[in-house]
Protein backbone atom coordinates (compact mmCIF):
# COMPACT_ATOMS: atom_id res chain seq x y z
CA UNK A 1 0.00 0.00 0.00
CA UNK A 2 1.36 3.44 -0.86
CA UNK A 3 2.91 5.61 1.82
CA UNK A 4 -0.09 7.41 3.29
CA UNK A 5 1.59 10.80 3.09
CA UNK A 6 1.93 10.55 -0.70
CA UNK A 7 -1.83 10.55 -1.16
CA UNK A 8 -2.48 13.75 0.79
CA UNK A 9 -2.66 17.17 -0.83
CA UNK A 10 0.60 19.05 -0.47
CA UNK A 11 -1.07 21.73 1.61
CA UNK A 12 -2.07 19.17 4.20
CA UNK A 13 1.51 18.00 4.61
CA UNK A 14 2.68 21.55 5.18
CA UNK A 15 -0.10 22.18 7.69
CA UNK A 16 0.74 19.15 9.75
CA UNK A 17 4.44 19.82 9.94
CA UNK A 18 3.92 23.21 11.53
CA UNK A 19 3.63 21.81 15.06
CA UNK A 20 0.77 23.85 16.54
CA UNK A 21 -2.60 22.16 16.54
CA UNK A 22 -5.91 23.36 15.23
CA UNK A 23 -9.15 21.89 16.36
CA UNK A 24 -12.83 22.19 15.68
CA UNK A 25 -13.71 21.92 19.36
CA UNK A 26 -15.65 24.59 21.23
CA UNK A 27 -14.16 25.80 24.51
CA UNK A 28 -16.33 23.59 26.74
CA UNK A 29 -15.61 20.61 24.47
CA UNK A 30 -11.90 21.35 24.60
CA UNK A 31 -12.03 21.43 28.40
CA UNK A 32 -13.93 18.14 28.53
CA UNK A 33 -11.46 16.60 26.10
CA UNK A 34 -8.47 17.44 28.31
CA UNK A 35 -10.35 16.11 31.32
CA UNK A 36 -10.58 12.75 29.58
CA UNK A 37 -6.86 12.74 28.97
CA UNK A 38 -7.25 13.37 25.22
CA UNK A 39 -4.78 15.77 23.54
CA UNK A 40 -5.95 17.36 20.28
CA UNK A 41 -3.22 17.10 17.64
CA UNK A 42 -4.91 18.64 14.61
CA UNK A 43 -7.96 19.23 12.46
CA UNK A 44 -8.25 16.52 9.81
CA UNK A 45 -10.44 16.17 6.77
CA UNK A 46 -11.17 13.86 3.88
CA UNK A 47 -12.89 14.56 0.57
CA UNK A 48 -14.16 12.67 -2.45
CA UNK A 49 -16.30 13.40 -5.49
CA UNK A 50 -18.17 10.48 -7.03
CA UNK A 51 -20.24 10.14 -10.12
CA UNK A 52 -22.54 7.27 -10.75
CA UNK A 53 -25.47 6.23 -12.79
CA UNK A 54 -25.26 4.96 -16.30
CA UNK A 55 -26.57 6.33 -19.51
CA UNK A 56 -30.34 6.28 -19.80
CA UNK A 57 -31.12 5.34 -16.22
CA UNK A 58 -33.77 8.04 -15.91
CA UNK A 59 -35.33 7.67 -19.31
CA UNK A 60 -38.68 6.03 -19.84
CA UNK A 61 -37.46 4.32 -23.00
CA UNK A 62 -35.32 2.09 -20.92
CA UNK A 63 -38.12 1.44 -18.49
CA UNK A 64 -37.40 -1.62 -16.46
CA UNK A 65 -33.92 -1.96 -17.89
CA UNK A 66 -31.07 -1.91 -15.43
CA UNK A 67 -27.45 -3.03 -15.38
CA UNK A 68 -28.56 -6.53 -14.49
CA UNK A 69 -30.86 -7.04 -17.39
CA UNK A 70 -28.34 -5.43 -19.72
CA UNK A 71 -25.05 -6.54 -18.27
CA UNK A 72 -25.03 -9.78 -16.44
CA UNK A 73 -24.03 -8.67 -12.92
CA UNK A 74 -25.53 -10.43 -9.91
CA UNK A 75 -29.06 -9.33 -9.04
CA UNK A 76 -29.83 -6.91 -6.20
CA UNK A 77 -31.36 -8.26 -3.02
CA UNK A 78 -34.82 -6.71 -3.17
CA UNK A 79 -37.31 -6.63 -6.00
CA UNK A 80 -41.07 -6.98 -6.22
CA UNK A 81 -43.20 -7.12 -9.36
CA UNK A 82 -46.74 -5.98 -9.94
CA UNK A 83 -49.05 -7.05 -12.73
CA UNK A 84 -51.99 -5.13 -14.10
CA UNK A 85 -55.28 -6.85 -13.29
CA UNK A 86 -57.24 -5.20 -16.08
CA UNK A 87 -56.38 -7.27 -19.13
CA UNK A 88 -56.36 -4.17 -21.32
CA UNK A 89 -53.41 -3.88 -23.65
CA UNK A 90 -52.28 -0.44 -24.74
CA UNK A 91 -49.16 1.64 -25.01
CA UNK A 92 -50.56 4.03 -22.40
CA UNK A 93 -51.62 1.46 -19.88
CA UNK A 94 -48.77 0.14 -17.80
CA UNK A 95 -49.31 -3.53 -17.43
CA UNK A 96 -46.24 -4.17 -15.39
CA UNK A 97 -44.45 -2.46 -12.55
CA UNK A 98 -41.57 -3.20 -10.19
CA UNK A 99 -39.92 -2.06 -6.98
CA UNK A 100 -36.22 -2.53 -7.50
CA UNK A 101 -33.23 -2.05 -5.24
CA UNK A 102 -30.39 -0.25 -7.03
CA UNK A 103 -27.14 -1.78 -5.77
CA UNK A 104 -25.05 0.13 -8.32
CA UNK A 105 -26.13 3.40 -6.72
CA UNK A 106 -25.50 2.01 -3.25
CA UNK A 107 -22.03 0.81 -4.18
CA UNK A 108 -21.07 4.14 -5.69
CA UNK A 109 -22.24 5.96 -2.56
CA UNK A 110 -20.41 3.54 -0.33
CA UNK A 111 -17.27 3.92 -2.38
CA UNK A 112 -17.37 7.70 -2.17
CA UNK A 113 -18.12 7.72 1.54
CA UNK A 114 -15.40 5.29 2.46
CA UNK A 115 -12.81 7.01 0.29
CA UNK A 116 -13.44 10.33 1.97
CA UNK A 117 -13.41 8.65 5.38
CA UNK A 118 -10.17 6.82 4.63
CA UNK A 119 -8.49 10.06 3.59
CA UNK A 120 -9.48 11.66 6.86
CA UNK A 121 -7.98 8.69 8.68
CA UNK A 122 -4.80 9.01 6.62
CA UNK A 123 -4.36 12.58 7.77
CA UNK A 124 -4.99 11.48 11.35
CA UNK A 125 -2.44 8.70 11.10
CA UNK A 126 0.10 11.12 9.65
CA UNK A 127 -0.26 13.10 12.87
CA UNK A 128 0.15 9.99 14.97
CA UNK A 129 -3.39 10.24 16.33
CA UNK A 130 -5.15 7.50 18.25
CA UNK A 131 -8.64 8.72 17.47
CA UNK A 132 -10.73 11.40 15.79
CA UNK A 133 -13.55 13.08 17.70
CA UNK A 134 -16.25 15.55 16.77
CA UNK A 135 -16.53 14.20 13.24
CA UNK A 136 -18.79 16.17 10.93
CA UNK A 137 -19.76 14.56 7.64
CA UNK A 138 -21.67 15.98 4.73
CA UNK A 139 -22.86 14.63 1.41
CA UNK A 140 -23.94 17.14 -1.20
CA UNK A 141 -25.58 16.46 -4.52
CA UNK A 142 -24.21 18.60 -7.29
CA UNK A 143 -27.35 19.56 -9.24
CA UNK A 144 -28.80 16.85 -11.46
CA UNK A 145 -25.60 15.47 -12.78
CA UNK A 146 -25.65 12.46 -10.45
CA UNK A 147 -22.46 13.66 -8.85
CA UNK A 148 -21.98 13.79 -5.10
CA UNK A 149 -19.35 15.28 -2.85
CA UNK A 150 -18.42 13.55 0.39
CA UNK A 151 -16.67 15.64 3.02
CA UNK A 152 -15.40 14.65 6.46
CA UNK A 153 -13.98 16.90 9.16
CA UNK A 154 -12.81 16.00 12.66
CA UNK A 155 -10.36 16.70 15.46
CA UNK A 156 -7.56 14.15 15.76
CA UNK A 157 -6.55 13.30 19.33
CA UNK A 158 -4.10 11.12 21.22
CA UNK A 159 -4.90 9.35 24.48
CA UNK A 160 -2.46 10.18 27.30
CA UNK A 161 -0.26 7.10 27.86
CA UNK A 162 -2.51 5.20 25.52
CA UNK A 163 -1.59 2.42 23.10
CA UNK A 164 -1.97 2.88 19.35
CA UNK A 165 -5.26 1.45 18.12
CA UNK A 166 -5.59 -1.98 16.51
CA UNK A 167 -4.29 -2.15 12.94
CA UNK A 168 -3.05 1.43 13.17
CA UNK A 169 -6.53 2.73 12.32
CA UNK A 170 -7.70 5.53 14.62
CA UNK A 171 -11.12 5.13 16.22
CA UNK A 172 -13.65 7.83 15.30
CA UNK A 173 -16.83 9.27 16.74
CA UNK A 174 -19.32 12.05 16.04
CA UNK A 175 -19.31 12.90 19.76
CA UNK A 176 -17.02 15.37 21.49
CA UNK A 177 -16.93 17.10 24.84
CA UNK A 178 -19.38 16.26 27.58
CA UNK A 179 -21.34 13.83 25.47
CA UNK A 180 -18.21 11.79 24.79
CA UNK A 181 -17.39 11.90 28.51
CA UNK A 182 -20.82 10.55 29.39
CA UNK A 183 -20.49 7.82 26.81
CA UNK A 184 -17.11 6.72 28.22
CA UNK A 185 -18.37 6.91 31.79
CA UNK A 186 -21.26 4.68 30.84
CA UNK A 187 -18.79 2.15 29.45
CA UNK A 188 -19.09 2.64 25.68
CA UNK A 189 -15.87 2.95 23.64
CA UNK A 190 -16.25 4.51 20.21
CA UNK A 191 -15.05 2.35 17.34
CA UNK A 192 -16.03 4.23 14.19
CA UNK A 193 -18.63 6.42 12.55
CA UNK A 194 -20.66 4.16 10.32
CA UNK A 195 -23.05 4.98 7.52
CA UNK A 196 -24.80 3.13 4.77
CA UNK A 197 -27.33 3.86 2.13
CA UNK A 198 -30.08 2.02 0.29
CA UNK A 199 -31.79 3.05 -2.92
CA UNK A 200 -35.05 1.71 -4.31
CA UNK A 201 -36.62 2.60 -7.62
CA UNK A 202 -40.36 2.40 -8.07
CA UNK A 203 -41.52 1.63 -11.62
CA UNK A 204 -45.24 2.21 -11.17
CA UNK A 205 -47.84 -0.01 -12.76
CA UNK A 206 -51.30 1.14 -13.77
CA UNK A 207 -52.99 0.98 -10.35
CA UNK A 208 -50.18 2.88 -8.63
CA UNK A 209 -50.08 5.48 -11.36
CA UNK A 210 -53.79 6.18 -11.04
CA UNK A 211 -53.76 6.33 -7.28
CA UNK A 212 -50.79 8.69 -7.14
CA UNK A 213 -51.92 10.94 -9.94
CA UNK A 214 -55.61 11.07 -9.08
CA UNK A 215 -56.64 9.51 -12.36
CA UNK A 216 -60.17 8.26 -12.79
CA UNK A 217 -61.73 5.24 -14.30
CA UNK A 218 -59.97 2.01 -14.99
CA UNK A 219 -61.04 0.45 -11.77
CA UNK A 220 -59.74 3.28 -9.63
CA UNK A 221 -62.22 2.99 -6.80
CA UNK A 222 -63.51 6.34 -5.61
CA UNK A 223 -62.58 5.52 -2.10
CA UNK A 224 -59.55 5.89 0.07
CA UNK A 225 -57.02 3.08 -0.20
CA UNK A 226 -53.39 2.50 0.60
CA UNK A 227 -50.98 2.75 -2.32
CA UNK A 228 -49.41 -0.63 -1.77
CA UNK A 229 -46.51 -0.49 -4.22
CA UNK A 230 -45.11 2.82 -3.03
CA UNK A 231 -45.69 2.02 0.65
CA UNK A 232 -43.82 -1.26 0.31
CA UNK A 233 -40.96 0.48 -1.46
CA UNK A 234 -40.66 2.97 1.40
CA UNK A 235 -40.67 0.25 4.04
CA UNK A 236 -38.15 -1.80 2.03
CA UNK A 237 -35.68 1.03 1.55
CA UNK A 238 -35.57 1.71 5.27
CA UNK A 239 -35.21 -1.97 6.13
CA UNK A 240 -32.42 -2.38 3.59
CA UNK A 241 -30.51 0.61 4.91
CA UNK A 242 -30.67 -0.85 8.41
CA UNK A 243 -29.59 -4.26 7.14
CA UNK A 244 -26.55 -2.79 5.41
CA UNK A 245 -25.57 -0.86 8.49
CA UNK A 246 -25.88 -3.93 10.65
CA UNK A 247 -23.42 -5.77 8.40
CA UNK A 248 -20.84 -3.14 9.22
CA UNK A 249 -21.48 -3.34 12.95
CA UNK A 250 -20.38 -6.96 13.41
CA UNK A 251 -22.36 -7.21 16.65
CA UNK A 252 -21.44 -3.82 18.10
CA UNK A 253 -24.09 -1.23 18.89
CA UNK A 254 -24.95 1.87 16.87
CA UNK A 255 -25.82 4.95 18.89
CA UNK A 256 -27.24 8.34 17.99
CA UNK A 257 -28.57 7.11 14.65
CA UNK A 258 -29.78 9.63 12.12
CA UNK A 259 -31.98 8.41 9.31
CA UNK A 260 -32.52 10.58 6.22
CA UNK A 261 -34.87 9.74 3.43
CA UNK A 262 -34.83 11.62 0.14
CA UNK A 263 -37.49 10.97 -2.42
CA UNK A 264 -37.32 12.08 -6.05
CA UNK A 265 -40.62 11.92 -7.84
CA UNK A 266 -40.36 11.26 -11.55
CA UNK A 267 -43.39 11.40 -13.79
CA UNK A 268 -46.35 9.05 -13.79
CA UNK A 269 -46.07 7.70 -10.28
CA UNK A 270 -42.43 6.59 -10.59
CA UNK A 271 -40.06 7.50 -7.76
CA UNK A 272 -36.56 6.94 -6.52
CA UNK A 273 -36.18 6.68 -2.75
CA UNK A 274 -32.78 6.96 -1.08
CA UNK A 275 -32.34 6.23 2.63
CA UNK A 276 -29.13 7.00 4.52
CA UNK A 277 -28.40 5.85 8.06
CA UNK A 278 -25.46 7.11 10.11
CA UNK A 279 -24.40 6.69 13.70
CA UNK A 280 -21.60 5.96 16.15
CA UNK A 281 -20.47 2.36 16.35
CA UNK A 282 -19.58 1.66 19.97
CA UNK A 283 -18.54 -1.31 22.05
CA UNK A 284 -18.94 -2.00 25.76
CA UNK A 285 -15.60 -2.12 27.51
CA UNK A 286 -16.91 -2.53 31.02
CA UNK A 287 -20.12 -3.51 32.71
CA UNK A 288 -22.74 -0.86 32.75
CA UNK A 289 -22.39 1.58 35.64
CA UNK A 290 -25.47 3.70 36.04
CA UNK A 291 -24.92 7.41 36.00
CA UNK A 292 -26.48 8.94 39.12
CA UNK A 293 -30.25 9.46 38.77
CA UNK A 294 -30.68 13.02 37.54
CA UNK A 295 -32.33 15.63 39.75
CA UNK A 296 -35.29 17.46 38.30
CA UNK A 297 -34.75 21.23 38.52
CA UNK A 298 -36.59 24.46 37.78
CA UNK A 299 -34.49 27.38 36.50
CA UNK A 300 -34.89 30.86 37.87
CA UNK A 301 -33.09 32.82 35.16
Amino acid sequence: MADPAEDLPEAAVRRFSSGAFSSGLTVPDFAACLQLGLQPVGLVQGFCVMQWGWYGSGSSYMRGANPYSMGGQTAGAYSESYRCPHGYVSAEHRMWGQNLEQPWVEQAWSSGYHSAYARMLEEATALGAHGVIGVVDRVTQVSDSQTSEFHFLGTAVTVDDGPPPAGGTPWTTYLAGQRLTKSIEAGFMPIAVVASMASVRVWAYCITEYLMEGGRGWGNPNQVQEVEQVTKAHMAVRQLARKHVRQQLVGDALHGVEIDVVKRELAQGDEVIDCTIRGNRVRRFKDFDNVPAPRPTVRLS
Partner: protein
Amino acid sequence: MSAENGTTPAATPAATPSELKAEMLRGAQSVATAPAPNKNRGITSDLSIDEALLLHAAGWEPVDLVCGVSIASVPYGVWTWGQGEISTASTAHNAAVQGASNRILEECRKVHGHGVVGVRIEVEVRNHHIDVELVGTAVRPVGDASPPALPFVSDLSARDFTLLKGAGWMPAGLAFGASFVYAPRRSAGAAMQQKTQNIELTNFTQAMYAARESAMERMQQSAINVGGHGVVGVKVTEGPMSFARHAVGFTAWGTTVKLVADVHKNITPQVILPLDDAVVTFAAQNLRGS
Protein backbone atom coordinates in the same frame (compact mmCIF):
# COMPACT_ATOMS: atom_id res chain seq x y z
CA MET B 1 -40.16 -6.18 37.66
CA SER B 2 -38.04 -3.68 39.56
CA ALA B 3 -38.34 -1.11 36.79
CA GLU B 4 -42.14 -1.21 36.97
CA ASN B 5 -42.15 -0.61 40.71
CA GLY B 6 -40.37 2.67 40.22
CA THR B 7 -37.14 1.74 42.00
CA THR B 8 -34.01 2.56 40.03
CA PRO B 9 -30.76 0.57 40.10
CA ALA B 10 -28.19 1.81 42.65
CA ALA B 11 -26.29 4.81 41.31
CA THR B 12 -22.53 5.34 41.55
CA PRO B 13 -21.14 8.80 42.49
CA ALA B 14 -19.77 11.03 39.71
CA ALA B 15 -16.19 10.29 38.58
CA THR B 16 -13.21 12.52 39.47
CA PRO B 17 -10.84 13.75 36.69
CA SER B 18 -8.23 11.08 37.35
CA GLU B 19 -10.94 8.44 37.29
CA LEU B 20 -12.14 9.82 33.92
CA LYS B 21 -8.66 9.56 32.45
CA ALA B 22 -8.40 6.02 33.74
CA GLU B 23 -11.72 5.15 32.08
CA MET B 24 -10.61 6.65 28.76
CA LEU B 25 -7.36 4.74 28.95
CA ARG B 26 -9.20 1.52 29.64
CA GLY B 27 -11.44 2.17 26.66
CA ALA B 28 -8.50 2.90 24.38
CA GLN B 29 -6.74 -0.24 25.55
CA SER B 30 -9.82 -2.31 24.85
CA VAL B 31 -9.65 -1.42 21.14
CA ALA B 32 -5.88 -1.85 20.86
CA THR B 33 -6.41 -5.52 20.11
CA ALA B 34 -8.81 -7.04 17.60
CA PRO B 35 -12.07 -8.04 19.31
CA ALA B 36 -13.39 -11.56 19.74
CA PRO B 37 -16.02 -12.46 17.12
CA ASN B 38 -19.40 -11.18 18.25
CA LYS B 39 -22.58 -12.98 17.29
CA ASN B 40 -24.95 -10.32 18.68
CA ARG B 41 -27.47 -8.74 16.38
CA GLY B 42 -26.21 -5.29 17.32
CA ILE B 43 -28.67 -2.68 18.51
CA THR B 44 -29.32 0.53 16.63
CA SER B 45 -30.88 3.45 18.42
CA ASP B 46 -31.56 7.04 17.51
CA LEU B 47 -31.45 8.18 21.13
CA SER B 48 -28.80 10.72 22.00
CA ILE B 49 -26.30 9.66 24.67
CA ASP B 50 -28.16 11.73 27.30
CA GLU B 51 -31.42 10.00 26.49
CA ALA B 52 -29.87 6.55 26.41
CA LEU B 53 -28.37 7.11 29.85
CA LEU B 54 -31.66 8.44 31.28
CA LEU B 55 -33.43 5.42 29.91
CA HIS B 56 -30.90 3.14 31.58
CA ALA B 57 -31.30 5.03 34.82
CA ALA B 58 -34.98 4.06 34.68
CA GLY B 59 -34.09 0.42 34.08
CA TRP B 60 -34.99 0.29 30.37
CA GLU B 61 -32.79 -0.11 27.30
CA PRO B 62 -33.06 0.64 23.57
CA VAL B 63 -33.50 -2.34 21.27
CA ASP B 64 -33.70 -1.16 17.70
CA LEU B 65 -34.60 1.64 15.34
CA VAL B 66 -38.07 1.03 13.89
CA CYS B 67 -40.12 2.75 11.18
CA GLY B 68 -43.60 2.74 9.73
CA VAL B 69 -44.75 4.35 6.50
CA SER B 70 -48.09 4.51 4.77
CA ILE B 71 -49.38 6.32 1.71
CA ALA B 72 -53.14 6.65 1.30
CA SER B 73 -54.64 7.82 -1.95
CA VAL B 74 -57.19 10.62 -2.06
CA PRO B 75 -59.82 10.11 -4.77
CA TYR B 76 -60.24 12.61 -7.53
CA GLY B 77 -62.30 15.72 -6.91
CA VAL B 78 -62.16 15.66 -3.14
CA TRP B 79 -60.75 19.18 -2.84
CA THR B 80 -63.22 20.90 -5.15
CA TRP B 81 -65.12 23.54 -3.21
CA GLY B 82 -68.15 22.29 -1.36
CA GLN B 83 -69.87 22.63 1.95
CA GLY B 84 -68.95 21.57 5.43
CA GLU B 85 -66.51 18.81 6.29
CA ILE B 86 -64.38 17.04 3.68
CA SER B 87 -64.92 13.63 5.19
CA THR B 88 -62.97 11.71 2.53
CA ALA B 89 -59.86 13.69 3.33
CA SER B 90 -60.28 12.97 7.05
CA THR B 91 -60.70 9.27 6.28
CA ALA B 92 -57.57 9.25 4.13
CA HIS B 93 -55.53 11.02 6.81
CA ASN B 94 -56.75 8.61 9.43
CA ALA B 95 -56.02 5.60 7.20
CA ALA B 96 -52.48 6.78 6.53
CA VAL B 97 -51.71 7.36 10.23
CA GLN B 98 -53.24 4.01 11.21
CA GLY B 99 -51.32 2.20 8.48
CA ALA B 100 -48.03 3.74 9.56
CA SER B 101 -48.73 3.01 13.26
CA ASN B 102 -49.52 -0.61 12.50
CA ARG B 103 -46.28 -1.06 10.60
CA ILE B 104 -44.11 0.53 13.26
CA LEU B 105 -45.79 -1.66 15.88
CA GLU B 106 -45.11 -4.72 13.72
CA GLU B 107 -41.43 -3.85 13.53
CA CYS B 108 -41.41 -3.27 17.29
CA ARG B 109 -42.94 -6.69 17.91
CA LYS B 110 -40.41 -8.38 15.63
CA VAL B 111 -37.56 -7.18 17.83
CA HIS B 112 -39.48 -7.92 21.04
CA GLY B 113 -39.72 -4.31 22.11
CA HIS B 114 -42.23 -3.22 24.74
CA GLY B 115 -42.88 0.08 23.05
CA VAL B 116 -41.50 2.78 20.80
CA VAL B 117 -40.36 6.16 22.13
CA GLY B 118 -39.23 9.38 20.53
CA VAL B 119 -41.35 8.84 17.46
CA ARG B 120 -40.79 11.50 14.84
CA ILE B 121 -44.00 12.08 12.89
CA GLU B 122 -43.96 13.46 9.36
CA VAL B 123 -47.20 13.98 7.51
CA GLU B 124 -47.49 15.38 4.01
CA VAL B 125 -50.91 16.10 2.59
CA ARG B 126 -50.76 16.23 -1.20
CA ASN B 127 -53.40 16.69 -3.81
CA HIS B 128 -53.79 13.00 -4.55
CA HIS B 129 -52.28 11.25 -1.57
CA ILE B 130 -51.42 11.62 2.08
CA ASP B 131 -48.03 10.32 3.24
CA VAL B 132 -47.23 9.51 6.86
CA GLU B 133 -43.81 8.47 8.16
CA LEU B 134 -43.03 7.43 11.74
CA VAL B 135 -39.48 6.75 13.02
CA GLY B 136 -38.56 5.88 16.61
CA THR B 137 -36.57 3.58 18.87
CA ALA B 138 -38.09 0.39 20.28
CA VAL B 139 -37.31 0.00 23.99
CA ARG B 140 -37.79 -2.61 26.70
CA PRO B 141 -36.95 -3.18 30.36
CA VAL B 142 -33.31 -4.28 30.53
CA GLY B 143 -32.93 -7.91 29.51
CA ASP B 144 -36.67 -8.57 29.27
CA ALA B 145 -37.31 -10.23 25.93
CA SER B 146 -40.95 -11.17 26.51
CA PRO B 147 -43.18 -8.75 24.68
CA PRO B 148 -46.45 -7.42 26.07
CA ALA B 149 -49.72 -7.89 24.19
CA LEU B 150 -49.96 -4.31 22.95
CA PRO B 151 -46.72 -2.37 22.68
CA PHE B 152 -47.12 1.40 22.83
CA VAL B 153 -46.11 4.00 20.26
CA SER B 154 -45.42 7.46 21.59
CA ASP B 155 -43.84 10.68 20.47
CA LEU B 156 -42.49 11.27 23.98
CA SER B 157 -38.75 11.70 24.06
CA ALA B 158 -36.85 9.14 26.13
CA ARG B 159 -36.38 11.92 28.67
CA ASP B 160 -40.11 12.60 29.03
CA PHE B 161 -40.78 8.87 29.12
CA THR B 162 -38.41 8.50 32.05
CA LEU B 163 -39.95 11.47 33.89
CA LEU B 164 -43.50 10.22 33.47
CA LYS B 165 -42.54 6.71 34.45
CA GLY B 166 -40.95 8.03 37.61
CA ALA B 167 -44.22 9.73 38.48
CA GLY B 168 -46.18 6.51 37.96
CA TRP B 169 -47.51 6.98 34.41
CA MET B 170 -46.87 4.97 31.23
CA PRO B 171 -47.57 5.91 27.63
CA ALA B 172 -50.42 3.94 26.09
CA GLY B 173 -50.25 5.13 22.49
CA LEU B 174 -50.24 7.93 20.00
CA ALA B 175 -53.39 10.05 20.14
CA PHE B 176 -54.36 11.81 16.96
CA GLY B 177 -57.36 13.25 15.17
CA ALA B 178 -57.85 15.22 11.99
CA SER B 179 -60.63 17.05 10.24
CA PHE B 180 -60.72 18.92 6.97
CA VAL B 181 -63.29 21.56 6.12
CA TYR B 182 -64.25 23.86 3.26
CA ALA B 183 -64.19 27.57 4.05
CA PRO B 184 -67.78 28.76 3.95
CA ARG B 185 -68.79 31.22 1.25
CA ARG B 186 -70.03 34.73 1.80
CA SER B 187 -72.51 36.20 -0.65
CA ALA B 188 -71.40 39.37 -2.43
CA GLY B 189 -74.25 41.32 -0.87
CA ALA B 190 -73.39 40.26 2.61
CA ALA B 191 -69.74 41.07 1.97
CA MET B 192 -70.61 44.62 0.90
CA GLN B 193 -72.87 45.19 3.88
CA GLN B 194 -70.23 44.10 6.32
CA LYS B 195 -67.51 46.26 4.84
CA THR B 196 -67.55 49.07 7.37
CA GLN B 197 -68.79 47.14 10.39
CA ASN B 198 -66.94 45.44 13.15
CA ILE B 199 -68.86 42.23 13.22
CA GLU B 200 -68.34 38.60 13.99
CA LEU B 201 -68.74 36.32 10.98
CA THR B 202 -70.81 33.66 12.62
CA ASN B 203 -70.88 31.21 9.67
CA PHE B 204 -67.14 31.17 9.48
CA THR B 205 -66.69 30.97 13.22
CA GLN B 206 -69.02 28.01 13.43
CA ALA B 207 -67.33 26.17 10.58
CA MET B 208 -63.77 26.62 11.84
CA TYR B 209 -64.69 26.07 15.47
CA ALA B 210 -66.58 22.90 14.62
CA ALA B 211 -63.71 21.53 12.57
CA ARG B 212 -61.17 22.24 15.29
CA GLU B 213 -63.34 20.64 17.95
CA SER B 214 -63.94 17.69 15.69
CA ALA B 215 -60.21 17.05 15.30
CA MET B 216 -59.75 17.30 19.08
CA GLU B 217 -62.69 15.00 19.67
CA ARG B 218 -61.28 12.36 17.35
CA MET B 219 -58.00 12.62 19.21
CA GLN B 220 -59.79 12.06 22.49
CA GLN B 221 -61.60 9.10 21.02
CA SER B 222 -58.35 7.50 19.93
CA ALA B 223 -57.13 7.88 23.52
CA ILE B 224 -60.24 6.24 24.92
CA ASN B 225 -59.85 3.39 22.44
CA VAL B 226 -56.55 2.34 23.99
CA GLY B 227 -57.83 2.68 27.52
CA GLY B 228 -55.87 5.79 28.37
CA HIS B 229 -56.54 8.13 31.28
CA GLY B 230 -55.36 11.27 29.62
CA VAL B 231 -53.46 12.92 26.80
CA VAL B 232 -50.41 15.10 27.36
CA GLY B 233 -48.44 17.33 25.03
CA VAL B 234 -51.36 18.07 22.75
CA LYS B 235 -50.23 19.91 19.62
CA VAL B 236 -52.84 21.40 17.34
CA THR B 237 -51.88 22.31 13.80
CA GLU B 238 -54.04 24.02 11.25
CA GLY B 239 -53.73 25.61 7.90
CA PRO B 240 -54.98 25.74 4.36
CA MET B 241 -53.81 23.11 1.85
CA SER B 242 -51.06 24.47 -0.36
CA PHE B 243 -52.76 23.13 -3.46
CA ALA B 244 -56.33 24.16 -2.49
CA ARG B 245 -56.42 27.23 -0.32
CA HIS B 246 -60.15 27.10 0.36
CA ALA B 247 -59.72 23.78 2.16
CA VAL B 248 -58.44 23.97 5.72
CA GLY B 249 -57.06 21.04 7.68
CA PHE B 250 -56.92 20.71 11.48
CA THR B 251 -54.94 18.02 13.24
CA ALA B 252 -54.44 17.29 16.92
CA TRP B 253 -51.63 15.04 18.17
CA GLY B 254 -50.65 13.96 21.65
CA THR B 255 -49.47 11.07 23.78
CA THR B 256 -52.04 8.93 25.55
CA VAL B 257 -50.98 8.09 29.09
CA LYS B 258 -52.22 5.74 31.78
CA LEU B 259 -51.63 5.90 35.52
CA VAL B 260 -50.07 2.52 36.38
CA ALA B 261 -49.03 3.27 39.95
CA ASP B 262 -51.69 3.62 42.66
CA VAL B 263 -51.23 7.36 42.90
CA HIS B 264 -49.25 10.01 41.09
CA LYS B 265 -45.78 10.40 42.66
CA ASN B 266 -44.57 13.95 43.14
CA ILE B 267 -41.11 14.90 41.92
CA THR B 268 -40.02 17.76 44.23
CA PRO B 269 -37.72 19.71 41.89
CA GLN B 270 -34.72 21.70 43.06
CA VAL B 271 -34.67 25.37 42.12
CA ILE B 272 -31.47 26.51 40.38
CA LEU B 273 -30.00 29.83 39.29
CA PRO B 274 -27.64 29.42 36.34
CA LEU B 275 -24.72 31.87 36.09
CA ASP B 276 -24.10 31.55 32.34
CA ASP B 277 -24.76 34.37 29.95
CA ALA B 278 -25.99 33.36 26.53
CA VAL B 279 -22.91 33.14 24.31
CA VAL B 280 -22.52 32.36 20.67
CA THR B 281 -20.63 29.09 20.57
CA PHE B 282 -18.22 28.19 17.83
CA ALA B 283 -18.94 24.88 16.18
CA ALA B 284 -17.03 22.80 13.64
CA GLN B 285 -19.94 22.95 11.20
CA ASN B 286 -19.23 26.66 10.73
CA LEU B 287 -15.84 25.88 9.25
CA ARG B 288 -17.47 24.37 6.21
CA GLY B 289 -19.42 27.47 5.23
CA SER B 290 -22.49 26.69 3.05
